[in-house]
């Protein structure tokens, strides 16, 4: 019941917000959106408090027939892996609603409705245990995001939205074929846990691997199918950049743990070298590209790709440090990238430019903001005692166990990540006041302070005491690793 509530409360609230109509009712729309988001977050809390750490399987399971002719079920459940993404998504939704409170002035109801509906759909993706249900949610999330970028985005929004849509749609069509194949192969079941035990010859696994790979790699995004992300981010309004970076990118990575690794373990092992290579390219190549960006959002977008490289790297190391590190990195990246995009949003709302060159010396007029952004920048560099360190640390530990050179390539992010993040920080925040407009900047208001404060608390809490995060994962991660280690051919 809890998972259904987590999915449908935001969606219903979103429809209610939509029903408030045009902008004369904007205050009502905002209030309703906040109530919906908060309720949506509250119902996810019992998922954590009631979670049985000793049970590696799926919990809070709901199962009902949906399309009985094809054995399709409304089948929900979370394990120690997906649990975190439901929580993260519900949390970020609250932040996005607060962050967009007074920034969005046109078509307020539609804006908040789109976010709430998307939030519910995303919870659906993370808790679906039926492949068709998963696919429907997975695809449906495209629509609100497409609308948000296309309607509230920047000047080049149409190009970005279409590129985003087509890129990801292309990937998921291949996944649909793979899903249909697995349905037939399994004797007519769409149940994802059933597929985990499905014997498949290596050749078939390899073909299916690529079917899934396109869908998930585009979402992550992995090099070289990443070029939609910087465009989408730069054109997207702040709120959708936050959701895009914090949650939507996680769908691809989540797909790898839910489908690719346990269903196609032999192909995963065979092709691990490819995945590791692509991940390392993401870390190094994209890190270098991030260094030379002139647009803050584009820089953070590239930084996101580079950080997600650690996630895919961790998964394909096939050890607990790697996988748990990757999962922790996903959660942390949810906080940190959300925070950084919000920081850029704070500046953009005041100056209406994302160009680094238009700033300089912001600390003189916005000291509070500068402190927050410093914290998030440091988390982005993976400084210990911030959440950014934990995942990178574990993945590097896991990589060393496999091969020291992989670890060395991955650890280059210690230098590269610090270079692009702090160089941007230096040019935007430090220095003397660069121009008249910077001189007139006002520091954070209460609403911004609240949003950034919550994220700062999350970043620090996870950095100082990450134990509760991984404690919940162990059972499910070990179960996953057991499946990966099991030959299926």
């Amino acid at each position, binding site marked *: 019941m809890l998972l259904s509530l987590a999915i449908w409360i935001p969606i219903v609230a979103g429809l209610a917000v939509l029903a408030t109509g045009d902008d004369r009712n904007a205050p009502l729309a905002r209030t309703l959106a906040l109530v919906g988001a908060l309720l949506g977050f509250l119902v996810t809390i019992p998922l954590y408090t009631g979670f049985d750490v000793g049970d590696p399987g799926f919990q809070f399971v709901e199962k009902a027939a949906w399309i009985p002719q094809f054995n399709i079920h409304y089948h929900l459940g979370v394990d120690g892996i997906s649990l975190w993404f439901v929580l993260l998504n519900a949390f970020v939704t609250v932040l996005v609603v607060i962050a967009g409170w007074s920034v969005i002035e046109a078509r307020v109801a539609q804006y908040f409705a789109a976010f709430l509906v998307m939030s519910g759909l995303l919870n659906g993706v993370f808790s679906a245990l039926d492949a068709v249900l998963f696919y429907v949610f997975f695809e449906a999330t495209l629509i609100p995001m497409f609308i948000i970028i296309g309607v509230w985005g920047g000047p080049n929004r149409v190009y970005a939205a279409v590129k985003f849509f087509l890129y990801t749609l292309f990937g998921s069509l291949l996944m649909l074929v793979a899903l249909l194949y697995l349905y037939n192969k399994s004797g007519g079941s769409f149940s994802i846990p059933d597929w985990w035990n499905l014997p498949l010859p290596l050749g078939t696994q390899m073909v299916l691997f690529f079917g899934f790979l396109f869908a998930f790699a585009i979402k992550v995004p992995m090099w070289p199918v990443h070029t939609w992300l910087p465009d989408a981010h730069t054109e997207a309004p702040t709120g959708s950049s936050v959701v895009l970076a914090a949650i939507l990118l996680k769908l691809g990575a989540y797909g790898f743990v839910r489908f690719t690794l346990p269903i196609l373990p032999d192909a995963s092992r065979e092709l691990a070298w490819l995945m590791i290579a692509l991940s390392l390219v993401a870390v190094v190549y994209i890190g270098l590209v991030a260094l030379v960006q002139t647009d803050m959002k584009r820089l953070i977008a590239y930084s996101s790709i580079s950080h997600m490289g650690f996630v895919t790297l961790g998964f394909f190391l096939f050890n607990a440090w790697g996988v748990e590190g990757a999962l922790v990195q996903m959660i942390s990246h949810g906080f940190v990238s959300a925070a950084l995009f919000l920081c850029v949003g704070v500046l953009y709302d005041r100056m209406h430019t994302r160009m680094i060159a238009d700033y300089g010396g912001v600390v003189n007029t916005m000291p509070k903001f500068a402190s927050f952004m410093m914290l998030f920048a440091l988390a982005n560099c993976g400084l*210990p005692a911030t959440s950014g360190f934990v995942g990178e640390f574990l993945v590097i530990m896991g990589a*060393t166990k496999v091969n020291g050179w992989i670890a060395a390539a991955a650890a280059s992010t210690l230098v590269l990540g610090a270079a692009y993040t702090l160089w941007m920080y230096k040019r935007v925040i430090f220095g003397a006041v660069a121009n008249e407009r910077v001189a007139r900047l006002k520091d954070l208001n209460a609403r911004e302070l609240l949003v950034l404060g919550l994220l700062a608390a999350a970043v620090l809490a996870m950095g100082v005491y990450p134990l509760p995060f991984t404690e919940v994962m162990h059972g499910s991660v070990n179960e996953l690793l057991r499946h990966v280690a099991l030959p299926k051919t």
Partner: protein
Amino acid sequence: MSMKTLYLVVPLAPLAGAIVAGLFGRAIGRAGAHRVTIAGVAVSFVASLAVFADVLAGNTFDGSVYTWLASGGVRFEVGFLIDRLSALMMVVVTFVSLMVHIYTIGYMAEDPGYQRFFAYIALFTFAMLMLVMANNFVQLFFGWEAVGLVSYLLIGFWYKRPSAIHANLKAFLVNRVGDFGFLLGIALVLAYFGTLQYRPVFDQAPALAASGALPITAICLLLFVGAMGKSAQFPLHVWLPDSMEGPTPISALIHAATMVTAGIFMVARMSPLYELSTTALAVVMAIGAITALSMGLVALTQYDIKRVIAYSTLSQLGYMTAALGASGYAAAIFHLMTHAFFKAVLFLAAGSVIIALHHEQDMRRMGGLRRHMPITYATLLVGAIASAGIPPFSGFFSKDAIIETIRHATVPGAAFAYFCVLACVFVTAAYTFRMVFLAFHGEPRFDPQHPPHESPAVVTVPLVLLAVPAVASGWWIGSLVFGDWFGASLVVRPEHANVAQLAAEYRGLVAFVVHGLAAPPFWLAVAGIATAYYLYRVRPELPKRLAQRLGVLYALVERKYGFDELYALVFAAGARAVGAGLWKGGDERAIDGVLVNGAARVVGWAAGVVRLVQNGLLSWYAFMMILGVAAVYAIVKYRVFAP
């Protein structure tokens, strides 16, 4: 209060001060900020003394505070290892920090960032204490990075200055290069030992070394890369001179007395590992020796008073590192301690001059200051004599212990290292007294309209308090270095027992001094002072002519051997060029240009074909849709894909 609570108080008291001063700085005001942070550090100092007494009584502690993270069957703890090594470091760190805190009241009195500064230095004290008290590698790395962070914040403290925010980025990135190696070293430790707690790692290390020297050597060398970054060893030394952009109290605390000694401390702490790899020891010794001599030479050519002291720091850190390579861990830690005192004196005295001259740092615009600032002069002179290594000042003892240890060392390259450290004694004395003579003697070259005044008591009292150990801490050599004071906290294998050989010859403090008076280092130091006197007091026109005669050679040293330019070209500009190439050539031209837009063109062409079927008739669309659904249905129903 139990001892464990006391251990917790040591790092947490400064942290609490930092948090209060940092978050509520405006509310509590300037006085409130310095009171709360000084109180925190003072509590920490007193608690450290109590811990020190307890350790002297024979108690040690190795236990965890809480489990930070668990994964893959390994628990990563936050915990403390309290033994003689960490207890000594705690006392030195908190004492110097306390003096610097008090001094800062005077030095930063006019600065608008007063509260922020106190928050930072208290936070730094916390980080450094976490580093030295750690009983595991994760916490060590936390402290390691945290001191680097605070150093970054403090070098860029005056964030409006372009030079400051350039220097702090550079410092952070160079440190990160070191940390890159350090983290990989830690990862190798975990891979080979399955734990990151010091104790089991040290216990298992000999067995691992017995099965092959390569892993231990790799671990030691990678960890040492971290030490090279933090302790600014050649060729990762480039950040330290630039770090002088920060306010002077920070130069004294972080860039002389504490953070930069983290690398030295770390290698000493890891002595059970380093002892197992002769290769690693030889590398450590060579790097230290090169750093000592090459950086000392640069100090001879600088005119910025803080930079002279900064290069002196680099050189002295080289001494400590070389001593580590000779398995003289006790001697290295001993020099770390005496250096912390005399270098803090030198820096804080220089700061006193800088403030008195309204932020003038160029020694060519000083001169004759001793008449105007007698206390500053006296304390700086104490620091200079100690630094030059004249008995009975502290530096004499610690430096002599290092030189003698290296003389006895047998690892490859020991003769080279011995030459470097010996030659460096002359250089050290020369640059130190060059500074004394240039700044404090001779004709005044500052603006006579604004003669300097002696600094207030908040500045001079810490100077005097630090000058006392700068003189006297060396007298501890008998027990600290030769008396096996560190006991089990430092491990030296019998074949590397160079210090023990010295200890056998040790006949008490007076005999040591008398013996020292007849040894080459002392006379080299005297010669260095005499040379500085001749060049800067007797024939002051000579240095310029000498510099001209030496030509390119002098220019090379003065330009710090060109490392800044090299790194700026290869790494900073190189990385940007590669990044730009990958962006424009890779992302935009290859991926978007060929793949994505190419695909779009194919689609566009296909659309031309498809347009034939898109005839705008609704019924036609409906028909196609039904066909599509039927196709999916057929796939599902008849298991088209089934083999």
